Structure formats: C-alpha cells, structure tokens
C-alpha cells in the first residue's frame, strides 16, 4: 500500500474540513464505545481476562519460534502447505505464483489487513487476475478505489448515501427504479452481486485472526460469513497471515475470543469463528482441494527483540481507535498507511521505519484511553513515547525544537537556577498578562498558540505557593 504517512498534518487538516467524513465520524464511534462498555459490564471477569490474555500472549511470544515450528508441523500433517515470507515482496511473489499455478482468473478475498500491508491486490491484478473483496465494507472500498480507514470496520468513514451512489454507478445492471433506501436494500444488492463471484472463484484468500499450534489450524472471526464462503467455495484456499498470530492451544483461543468481540463491537461473540485445518479430506463433498498458509515476518521478528515487543500482543480489535480522540477527529485515512489509530501510531513506524512514520507517535494527546481499553493491555502511550525518543535520537526533529528541549533539560537538571528562572518567568508573564488573563501569542511558541490561547500565570510559581502553604500562610 502506498505510504502517505509523512503527510499526516496536511491530511488531518483536510480531514477536519471534509464535511462528508465528519458526518460519518460523528455518527459512529460513540456507539462502539457504549457497546463495549455494556459488554464489559455484563461479564464480571472481563478485567481479569485482560490480564490473562496479556500473560498468555507474552508467554507465547517468549516461545514464538517453537510454537511456529509446532504449528507448521501439525498443519503440514493435516495436508496444509506452509510458506514463509520475510518481506511483503516475498509474500506477494509466493501468492501470485500459487494463483498462477492454479490458472486462476478470479480470486475472491475475505478481509485481511496483512493483504493490505503487502499490497496483494495490485500484485494479483498486475498478474492479470480479477480480484474481488467480499467483506461488504472492503467491497465498497474496492468500488471506490479506496483503502480501509479502520481495521474492523473498513468503510466506517462512509455514509449510506455515498454507498448508494457507488452501487448505482458500478452495478450497471441495476434498474434505476430499484429502491436502495434502507441499509438492508444495499446489503441485499451487494449479496446478489457477490454470490455469483463466490461460486465462480478459482482461489479464495483469507487472513487469519489466529493460528493454533496444537492443531495446525487457522482461525477467522467474522460476522458476515463472507470469509467462509470465500474459503469453502474456491478450489484453493490461501491464508495470508503474520508470524505473531500463533497461539498454543484451543483453550487460549477461547480466552482471546472472549475478549476480541467484546472489545471490538461489544458483541458477546462474533457470529462466526471458524477453525480450518487442512484441505478437503477423503469423502468430503465440499471445501478447497488445496490449502496454503503464508506466514509473513515483515519486521516482526526483529521487533520482538526491541522495547516495542508488547505491540505484538495486539489482536486487532480496533478498540484503541474507537476510543481515540485523534482518530475520532481525523479518521483513519489521515494516518496514511494500513494501521490507523493508536495501534498504527506504534506499529506503523516499526513496519515502515520511523523516518516515514514519525508523525504518528506525535499525533497523540496522551490521554491514555487506548491503553485503558486495550484487551491485551498494550501500553500504547508509553510505546509512542519510545518512538518520540527514537525519533529525537535519530535527529529527526527540527533544530529549534531540539535546541529548546536541550535548554530546558539543562535548566531542569539545575533546580536552583530552574526555580529562579521560573519565578522570573511567572512574575514577568503574570504582570504582562494581567489585563487579559491570557496570551494570544508569545515569541517562540507560534506553533502552539496558533490554535489556542496560553493562560497567563498568576504571578507566583507552584513551588512558591507550596512553600507558603507549608509555612501556613493563608491563601
């Protein structure tokens, strides 16, 4: 996928002015927040389960190589063909080759963020194949030539009217007088068109929410059933997933399933969770004749050895973005690459490099809501701070920012000088700002005061007030 991340600031400015987008955003996130809260309240063990989930993911990552080998062994024994890909490029090549060998003309796809990460659709199309997204949201985006703006609700940035216009434009056999008033009409229309495609697909590609080492299974978790049609009606099923998805046992899956749907949409569980193990077996009357799994690294193995390891616990529930004030204001596309929101702010710099991803960990208010809802208890704000440090050390920030921070650091390490300087500053600013109570503008702070006023200090510093308070001076 094309990387737009360095233009985050400009994109955010445009997004805030985009009336359609703001309308779509205004309608949605609150609903998901309330639904998650309701689901959490309905399950007394929810908070404790988050601890359990975090710990079991940590334990699995600690033995990641062993579990991957075990997974591979068991999957292979069930008839799967497991492929390893170090980079996006390798993964694309493997999948294109598999499809070509199959003589594939039509490839259907279930929703997969990894396929976005590796830019799979373009590669298949360049190789002459028709590729069709079957998740309803992804299908709409494909018609529009857009990318997902949310990891579980990819078309969350669109309104119903926009979808109607898209269907009328692209479904050329649709009678002009067919009513498409209710969301149900639109869903029915998409169902009609996609049915034919499911039935005539040569290859079906899905992602995997999890892999299970114990049984060699891949797992998809969905509501629409499109992933299941994709994988069971095509001649060949290809799973594209990443190495961090492996779990030890089906019991571990049960625990994570209890957290995933509740965190994502507030459902008790999704409509479907499907554990697939190998291709069609002797005597089976349906199912794919061949079953391939492509395991993508793309920087994750290295990430495991860094201070960012914890991000590999992520189960892609989307709760962090649903609760993020920045995401809620600017939407997912502003982040400029596959993973938006707080998870994107931590993962994107790791996958595309801090050079290109630096804007994201800086686009945070550090309100901490993401961490407070993350089912895997990933300390997202802390990890964003690590990225800021890494960026600073790499010398990315502009000179004046580094100079100002260096000056502040020098001062902060010398308490006496610091207090004198602060007393002076507070008294001066207090005197200057006495009339209005705030400043519209101050030298050197243009970037900050452009969007907000700075309240004028009352004349004395906190330290002074505290000292007086300790001495019992009445206020």
């Amino acid at each position, binding site marked *: 996928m094309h990387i737009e991340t360095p233009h985050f600031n400009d994109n955010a400015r445009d997004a805030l002015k985009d009336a359609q987008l703001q309308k779509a955003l205004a309608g949605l996130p609150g609903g998901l927040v309330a639904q998650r809260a309701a689901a959490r309240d309905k399950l007394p063990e929810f908070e404790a*389960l988050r601890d*359990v989930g975090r710990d079991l993911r940590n334990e699995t990552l600690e033995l990641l190589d062993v579990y991957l080998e075990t997974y591979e062994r068991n999957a292979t024994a069930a008839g799967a063909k497991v492929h390893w890909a170090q980079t996006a490029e390798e993964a694309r090549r493997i999948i294109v080759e598999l499809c070509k060998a199959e003589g594939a003309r039509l490839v259907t796809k279930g929703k997969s963020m990894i396929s976005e990460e590796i830019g799979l659709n373009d590669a298949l199309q360049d190789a002459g194949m028709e590729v069709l997204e079957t998740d*309803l949201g992804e299908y709409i985006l494909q018609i529009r030539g857009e990318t997902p703006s949310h990891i579980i*609700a990819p078309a969350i940035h669109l309104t*119903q009217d926009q979808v109607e216009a898209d269907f009328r434009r692209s479904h050329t056999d649709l009678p002009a007088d067919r009513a498409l008033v209710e969301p149900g009409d639109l869903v029915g229309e998409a169902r009609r068109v996609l049915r034919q495609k499911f039935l005539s697909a040569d290859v079906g590609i899905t992602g995997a929410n999890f892999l299970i080492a114990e049984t060699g299974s891949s797992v998809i978790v969905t509501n629409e059933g499109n992933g299941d049609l994709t994988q069971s009606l095509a001649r060949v099923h290809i799973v594209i997933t990443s190495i961090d998805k492996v779990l030890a046992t*089906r*019991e571990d899956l049960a625990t994570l399933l209890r957290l995933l749907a509740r965190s994502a*949409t507030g459902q008790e569980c999704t409509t479907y969770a499907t554990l*697939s193990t190998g291709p069609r077996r002797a005597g089976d009357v349906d199912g794919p004749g061949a079953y391939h799994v492509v395991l993508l690294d793309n920087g994750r193995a*290295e990430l495991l050895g860094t201070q960012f390891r914890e991000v590999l616990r992520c189960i892609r529930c989307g709760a962090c973005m649903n609760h993020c004030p920045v995401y809620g204001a600017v939407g997912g596309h502003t982040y400029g690459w596959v993973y938006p929101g707080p998870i994107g702010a931590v993962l994107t710099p790791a996958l595309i490099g801090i050079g290109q991803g630096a804007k994201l960990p800086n686009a945070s208010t550090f309100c901490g809501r993401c961490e407070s809802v993350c089912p895997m208890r990933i300390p997202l704000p802390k990890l964003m701070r690590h990225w800021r440090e890494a960026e600073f050390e790499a010398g990315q920030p502009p000179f004046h920012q580094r100079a100002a921070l260096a000056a502040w650091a020098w001062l902060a390490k010398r308490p006496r000088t610091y207090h004198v300087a602060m007393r002076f500053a507070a008294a001066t600013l207090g005197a200057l700002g006495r009339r209005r109570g705030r400043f519209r503008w101050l030298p050197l702070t243009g970037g900050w005061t452009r969007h907000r006023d700075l309240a004028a200090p009352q004349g004395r510093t906190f330290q002074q007030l505290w000292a007086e308070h300790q001495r019992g001076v009445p206020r």
Partner: protein
Amino acid sequence: MSDTARSAILSRIRASLKVAADDPDRATLAAQRIAGHPQNLVPARASAAGTDLVALFRSYLEGQQATVSAVASHSDVPAAIGNLLNATGATGVVRRGSDPLLGDMPWAEAKDLVVREGAAEPDDVAGVSYALAGVAETGTLVVGAGKDNPVTLAFLPGIHIIIVARDTIVGTYEEALARVRKIYGASGMPRTLNYISGPSRTADIGGKIVIGAHGPRTLGVIIVG
C-alpha cells in the same frame, strides 16, 4: 527459497529472544502447554453450579436473532423444520449432510419437504447441520464440518438449521472442546470447526446492523431431547 526464508525468520526470532536453536527446555515448555492444554480463567456465567444451561443458551441465541425451538426426539425434527420453513414462507430443496444422526430421521413423514443429501447448491432454500455441542455462555453452536456435515450448508443457503441434542449443551467453550477431543482425538480436528452464534450480519453500511449479509438470513436452532 521458502526454506531460506523459514530459517532466516526463525533465527531472527531466536536472536531477538536471545535463545539458542533446539533448546530442549523451551521445546518441553511448549509441548507441556499443548499436552496439558490448561484452562485459563473461565467466566462463572455458565460454569456456576445450578445454572440452567439450556435457558441461558436459548436466551443468548435469541438475543443474537436466531430462531430457537425444542422438540422431544429425533423423529420430531423433520416436522419442526417444515414449520420453520413455513414461517419464513420459503420453499425449495432442503439440503442435509450424511451425518447418521440426520439419516435416522423420518424425512418422508414431512410431506412438504424436499430433502436432498450433499453439499449446498446455489438454489437450495435451507441447509441442515447437526452440532456436536452448544455453548451456553454465548449462545454458540459448535459444528464439526466435514463429510457428515458439509461446511457449505452453513453459509450458502438463505436458511441454516442446526440440530443440537439437549445433553450436548454445555456451559463453556472449554467443555465443548472436551467433546471435540473426545470425538476427533487429543489434537485432532474436523476440517473446519465452526462456532456459529446467529444468522450472518454486517454493520458496514452506516454502522447499522443488518441481518443476512453473505451467509444465512435465518438461523434456526432445534434442540432435541
């Protein structure tokens, strides 16, 4: 090429974890976890003594827009399916798998029903599967799909009907997994193990939930016994 990628990825992981390849202790740890497959924290909702599991199972399923009914025995199932189809007004071929539990049912007695065996065809009106367990904690059916219960029956027809024996309705996923292990062996699996908790749905258009996305619009669950 894949072999090079495989060893490169595995050694990168080991370098990151600062461990050696073929460390017997680490292999043992993983093997023990798999062999013991310990239960993690299990919610009390459906595991507390005295819980009416069938009632809980039903109430969650109905909350998820499934249509649930109960019959006394296997011989009542075809008629119950007939009622379900009448209620939806749908007519056409009802497709079922070759599961012996389904084979024993008196299909001929339900005169209006056209029942065929096999994988789902595009024009079938309904698919019928036999669940290996029901999970009360979320109102979930566990179907082991394979030659007895073809997986397409659960997704292609507009109506999916799942039969579940009352005595296989358990409280938790962990208990259902115990049944899976009993049927398929310690680490065995059917080709697909399907957890199904209602008719298919989507919220992809304007965030409003619509029932009947790509999979069934109706999920009928018939509890037997």
